C-alpha cells in the first residue's frame, strides 16, 4: 500500500492503495466515480477511457503509481449537467442504446475533436477505436460531426 495524491476533475484526492492498482479501479471503487466503466481490463474496448492531462487514455491498464501529477478528467468532470457540446450532440442524435460504452466513447470523441476540430470520416475511423456492442457507431459518427460543428460556432 502507498499514498498517492490525485487530481481528478479538478478535485484533490489522497488514496492509500496498492501501487499496481489501475487508475480505473481507484476511480471506481476507492473514489466512487462509477461513470468510467470496466469492459476488458486490457485496453482493448475503451469503456474505461479518461483524459490524462487532456488526452484520451484507457485507465484499466494504467497503474496508479504512473499517474504522477497528471490532471485526470472522467466523464463526471466533462460538465456538471451534460452541457458539454459533445454530450449535447450525443443526446441530440439519441446515440445510446444500452449506454454502457458511451462514457468512454464521449471521452474519446472529445479528445478527437480537440485534435481535429473538423474531423473527416477517415479521422473518425482512425480516432474512434472504442467498442460499442450495441452497434451505435453511425450515430456516434453523426454526433461527433454535430459536436464539431457546434464547437466552431
Amino acid at each position, binding site marked *: 500500500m502507498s499514498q498517492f495524491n490525485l487530481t481528478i476533475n479538478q478535485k484533490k484526492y489522497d488514496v492509500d492503495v496498492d501501487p499496481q492498482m*489501475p487508475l480505473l479501479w481507484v476511480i471506481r471503487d476507492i473514489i466512487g466515480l462509477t461513470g468510467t*466503466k470496466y469492459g476488458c*481490463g*486490457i485496453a482493448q474496448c475503451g469503456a474505461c477511457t479518461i483524459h490524462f492531462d487532456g488526452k484520451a487514455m484507457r485507465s484499466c491498464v494504467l497503474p496508479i503509481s504512473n499517474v504522477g501529477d497528471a490532471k485526470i478528467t472522467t466523464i463526471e468532470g466533462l460538465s456538471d449537467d451534460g452541457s458539454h457540446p459533445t454530450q449535447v450532440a450525443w443526446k441530440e442524435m439519441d446515440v445510446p442504446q444500452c*449506454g454502457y460504452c458511451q462514457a468512454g466513447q464521449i471521452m474519446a470523441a472529445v479528445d478527437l475533436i480537440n485534435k481535429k476540430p473538423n474531423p473527416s470520416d477517415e479521422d473518425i475511423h482512425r480516432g*474512434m477505436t472504442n*467498442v460499442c456492442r450495441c452497434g451505435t457507431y453511425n450515430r456516434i459518427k453523426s454526433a461527433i460531426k454535430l459536436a464539431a460543428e457546434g464547437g466552431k460556432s
Partner: protein
Amino acid sequence: MKELGVMNRRGFMKVSLASGGGMLLGFSWLGACNNSSGEGVIHEQVDFNAFVKIDSSGMVTLMSPNPEIGQGVKTSLPMIVAEELDVDWKNVKIEQAGLDTEKYSRQVAGGSGSIRSSWDSFRKAGATARVMLINAAAAAWGVESSSCYTSAGSVYHKDSDKQFKYGDLVNSAVAQKVPEDVPLKSPGTYKLLGKRIANVDNDAIVTGKQLYGIDTKREGMKYVCISRPPAFGQELVSYDSTESLKVSGVEKVIDFDHKIAVLANNTWAAMQGVKALKIEWTGNESFDSTKDYLTNFKKALETKSNQDPKRNDGNIDTAFEGVEEIISLDFEAPFLPHNTLEPMNFFADVKTDSAELYGPIQTPERTRKRVAEQIGIPEEKIQLGLTRMGGGFGRRLMSDFVEEAAMVSKLAQVPVNVIWTREDDMGGGFYRPMGYYRYKAALDADHNLIAWHHDSIGCSGNLSRQDNFPAGAVENFRVDSRLYETPVTTGPWRAPNHNFIAFTEESFVDEIANRTGKDPLTFRLELLKQAEDNPVGKVDYDTERYANVLKKVADMAGWNKVKPDGIYQGLAAHFSFGSYVAEVVELEKMNDGKLKIKKVYCAVDCGIVINKSGAETQVEGGIIDGLGHALYGEITLTNGKADQLNFDQYRLIKMKEVPEIEVHFIQSDESPMGLGEPGLPPAGAALANAVFAAINVRLTAQPFIKSDIFV
C-alpha cells in the same frame, strides 16, 4: 401540514384488470420525490394503476416494468401508456419497476416480446386512467362524460370553456369506478407513437450518472471475483488460498460447487486474489475440441436422421430420385459468446430469512424462483430490483450469475457484488450453439424448385424454424434437426435460431436462384407467389408483407439498375419475432480485388412503429451486430476450454468497418412488434450473397474473415 412519505389510504381500491395488465392498485400518497426544487413544494401523487401515477402538479410518472437491456423499452413502453393517457411527453417521468408479479404480468426482456405482449395491456392502462379523469371532470361539472374530451394532460368540456388539468383531478379521478372496455385510439390519431423520442436515460448516460449493476456499492458490501472451472465439464480437486489471502484488500476465500470465491474490499484486489489461488482441476486432456465437434457433425449427417422430422411436406425421397439437378450446400455455425460490454455481475444480500437481489437480469421472475430454491428462502421474502443493463443479447436470460452471488452472500454472510472479469465472461458463457447445416434442393427440367431438405446437427436440438419461408412454397419440404450432446453450456443469443438459419436459408435460396439463372429478387417473389396461390402446409409468415419488404428494399437499393463498375449487391430477407426485414448489402471491389462493405439498405415491416428513433437504432444495431459476427465472431475450444478469452483474441466490429445504413419502415396499422432482434438475421446472408455477386465465391462458414477477401 402534510407528512412526507406517509401512505394516504384515501381512495384506496383494488381491482383486477381483465386485459392481463395485472392488478390495478389505486391509492394516493405524497410524492416527496417531486420536491426536487428544494422549496418545500410537495405535490400529492396518486397511483391510478400499476403503470400510471399523476401528481397534483400534473406531472405524470409512468412505470416501466420490463428489464432494459438497450432495446429501448424503458422509453417505448411508457410511450404507449402516455399516448392513451393523452399527456404531453415533456411532463412525463419514467421509473424502472422492480420485480412485482402482483402488478405486472410479463417482466422479461427476450424474444423481442416486450412490445408485442404489452401492447394491449399498456394501452388499456393509459386509456383507463384517462377515462377516470374524464369521469371525474364530468361529475364536477355535472355534465355527461361523453361531452368531455382530453388533450395534452387536460380535460375539456366541448360545449363550454371549462377545463381541468389532470393534476386538479387526481383525487376525484382515483375515486371513480374503474371502467371496463375503455375505448382505444385508432392509429391514425396518434400524437406520440411513431415520433422520434430520445432514450429517457440519455441525460444520466452521457454524464456518467447512470448506475449499472456493476456500479452497485452498499454499506459493508464485498467485491467478489470467482475462479470457475476453465474447461466445460471440469471439476475442482483442491486449492490453496494462502497466497490469495496475502493480497492487500482480500478478506476471505470460500468455495462452493466447484468454484472458489475471493471476497475483497475492491474489485482489483478480488481479481488479484483469484490469480493468486493455487488450484488443481480434474484433467481435461480427453475433452473434445471444436474441431472434433465439426468432424462428428459431418459424420452424423452421413446417416439419415432417426428422429421425427420437424416438418415433412410431400416426399423428398421420391422427389430427389432422377431429377434434373440437385444443389447442395453445407454451412458451419461457430459458438458465439454474448460479450455484453458490461460483464456479468449481481448484488446479493442474503440474510437468515430474507434476501435482496439487485442487478442486470432479463428474466427476474424465473431467476428469483431459482434463487429461492437454492438458498431456501421463499420467493416472497426475496426482493429483486432491476438495473439498466450494459447489454443482454440473451446472456442475461440465464440466472447462473445471480444464483452464484446469492450463494456467496449466504455462505459469507455479507452483502456482495460478484463481478465477472472479461475472461470469466467470454470463457464461461452460454454460447450460441455451434452447428452444422446441410441443404439439398431438387430442380425439375424447367428449373422449378420441387424439393428442399434441411438437415442440421448442433449443440442444441432446435436449429431450425421449420414453418418459415420458403416452407409453403415447395411441394416436397423436409426439415430434420438433431441434437449433439456436449458439456458446453449454450443458450439463446440475439435472435435465437434465426441468427444463423437466416444465413443458411437465404444463402441457399440465392444459390438456387443463381444456378437457375434467375434474379434473386424475382426468384423469391415467385416463391412467395406460389406460397400465396398454392400454399403447401401451414406457415407462420404473411406472403404479402414478406414480398413488400423485398420490393421496398430493392427499390431503395436500385436493385435492378445498372451499377457503377466495382459495385455489387446481395439480397436477403427474413421473418422473425413478428417482423419482416429485407436487406441489401452493397460492396465495393477495391483496386487490389479486396471487398469493402459500402452500404446496407433495409426495409422493415414491424407493424406500428412505437418510437421511430428507437426502432431505427435497434435495426441499425442489429445489422451491425449481424455483419460483425458473420465477419469476425467465433469461439473455438481446445479440450473443452475456450481459446478466446478477451478482445485481443476475439474481434468485435468497430467504427471503421461499419457501413452507412439506410432503414425504411413500411407504414402499417398492424399491431407493433419488438425490434431487438429482427434486424440481425438477414445481414450475414445479404453480405454473403453480395460477395457471391462480386467474386463468385459462396461463403458458407462463419466467420467470413477466414477467407481473405475483405479490406
